[in-house]
């Protein structure tokens, strides 16, 4: 204790010697914030192997995503943020090629924590993964099936948003380009209707309202509703399909235990425009436990398990018999997530997709992902 006191007194003496370096108070704000451009990114390589009970096996190696973030802050209030993505390595044109996507590019005005406004290419706040989709942030090599057919992740488009934090609740209101109703399907919900910012329809915008509470008893709770009148054509006449996506999500991280649960549904008021489907529903639950502390390792070693139950034709208008059974499947998946660093992840998972009608499919995935 005496030694410590001596040390501290010596520290004080040492600092007094250097007191010549004192700065005027008003300069501190300029030191702690300087206009700057930042670069970030993420990417992921996947090995996907699929073995149907009947039929041919398949295996692919795919550098699924290569993404660069470019941001610039002009001041504490005004910033630009962007996310530019190459999917599947090669862009050669045509349907079988990869894609270049500008998933985010917006000017952000954020005067204080209560509110801010964004305009440009945005991601609506729908579920956990749509806005925060870097590979180290979710379990599994591929994003959960729920985030393909119930929530069409990554869902992005041109628009504007108001957001902020009031009474420790995060809120966000997004108004963005509409959806193309002709792309809706019984198999993949509204996924095919995304316009991805390409000369997008502004006559029938998408409205997305979300609320979330972060770090409440170790939990992140949130929900959203997203509405639109998707334009469509039927028998040569124009029609609109009122579409509502509602979802609730929960994430829990405490004492090496990780849990995620999401549930959501899509409702259409014109099932005749979606092959007889009036609602799609899905749910998944992830449970994981970080073994690294027990094993005396640094980083994270997380075995996890996922159960999904998805039906993209949960409610139908009855015109097609057994449509709801044809589009229902359950999915079990177990995996291992190894993170030597918080931003680098190695992934392995094995799953079994069990359609209510038809043969089971086994899947094995390996992956590596990073973010910075």
């Amino acid at each position, binding site marked *: 204790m005496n030694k410590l006191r001596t040390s501290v007194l010596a520290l004080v*003496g040492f*600092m007094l010697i250097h007191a010549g370096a004192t700065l005027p108070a008003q300069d501190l704000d300029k030191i702690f914030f300087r206009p700057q451009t930042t670069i970030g990114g993420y990417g992921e390589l996947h090995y996907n192997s699929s073995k149907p009970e009947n039929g041919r096996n398949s295996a692919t190696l795919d550098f699924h995503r290569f993404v660069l973030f470019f941001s610039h802050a002009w001041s504490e209030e005004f910033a630009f943020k962007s996310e530019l993505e190459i999917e599947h390595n090669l862009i050669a044109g045509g349907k079988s090629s990869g894609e270049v996507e500008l998933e985010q590019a917006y000017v952000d005005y954020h005067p204080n924590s209560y509110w801010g406004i964004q305009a440009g290419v945005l991601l609506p706040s729908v579920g956990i993964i749509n806005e925060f989709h870097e590979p180290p942030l979710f379990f599994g090599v591929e994003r959960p099936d729920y985030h393909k057919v119930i929530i069409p992740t990554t869902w992005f488009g041109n628009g504007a948003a108001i957001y902020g934090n009031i009474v420790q609740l995060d809120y966000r209101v997004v108004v963005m380009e509409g959806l193309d109703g002709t792309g809706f399907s019984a198999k993949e919900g509204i996924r095919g209707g995304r316009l991805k910012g390409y000369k997008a329809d502004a006559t029938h915008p998408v409205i997305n309202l979300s609320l979330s509470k*972060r770090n409440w008893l170790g939990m992140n709770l949130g929900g959203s509703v997203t509405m639109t009148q998707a334009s469509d054509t039927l028998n040569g006449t124009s029609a609109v399909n009122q579409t509502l996506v509602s979802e609730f999500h929960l994430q829990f991280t405490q004492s090496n235990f990780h849990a995620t649960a999401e549930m959501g549904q899509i409702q259409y008021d014109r099932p005749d425009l979606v092959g007889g489907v009036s609602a799609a529903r899905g749910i998944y639950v992830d449970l994981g436990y970080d073994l690294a502390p027990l094993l005396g390792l640094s980083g994270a070693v997380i075995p996890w398990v996922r159960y999904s139950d998805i039906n993209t034709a949960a409610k139908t208008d009855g015109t097609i018999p057994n449509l709801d059974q044809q589009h229902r499947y359950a999915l079990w998946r177990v995996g291992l997530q190894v993170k030597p660093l*918080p931003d680098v992840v190695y992934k392995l998972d094995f799953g079994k997709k069990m359609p209510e009608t038809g043969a089971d499919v086994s899947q094995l995935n390996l992956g590596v992902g990073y973010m910075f």
Partner: protein
Amino acid sequence: MIRYYFFGFRFLAIVGCLFLAIPQVLNAGVREEAEGVIRDFFPDAKSIEFQALALQNDARTVAEQTAGQAFLLDKLYYWEIRSGESILGYAVLDNVKGKAHPITYLVLFSSELKVQRVRVIRYREQIGGAIQEPRWLEQFRGRDRHSGFDPGRHIDGISGATISVNAISRGVQRITVYLSQLANNTVAADME
């Protein structure tokens, strides 16, 4: 179904104008805010003396290696809090890198260089703001250079705020080790 066409772009424009009309909360400078936190924690302080000190290379290397995080600023922005002759504690204002913006935070130390309080002075990101909550920051209290600071193991994580949690945890460790190292180096130099 909610009749959504009551909303639309017009709705957003109206709400935006309302927000703009609300007088903005005027932010005090970072120094004023930091000194407010210091006075609140050390009500008996007779003097708080601010200095900007050049970083010492040896101590800097040890601190950066231990915490696994580099200093963003090239000086130590430091207060010494006194009540007459006796030292009550120290405070350091520092930046860490958030997702796109720096996070400015203040660490208060006892005279024995144990962390007493951590406060986020400026959080500039859209998300991950839960690290500002005093309840979460309370877990740094009592930690010193020998303590663990690993997020997920020694420091509770926050879902949806991974980058900020990691940045602040490493930052507090880096500042704690740096100050302790500075004290040790000075003692060693005096003994020679």
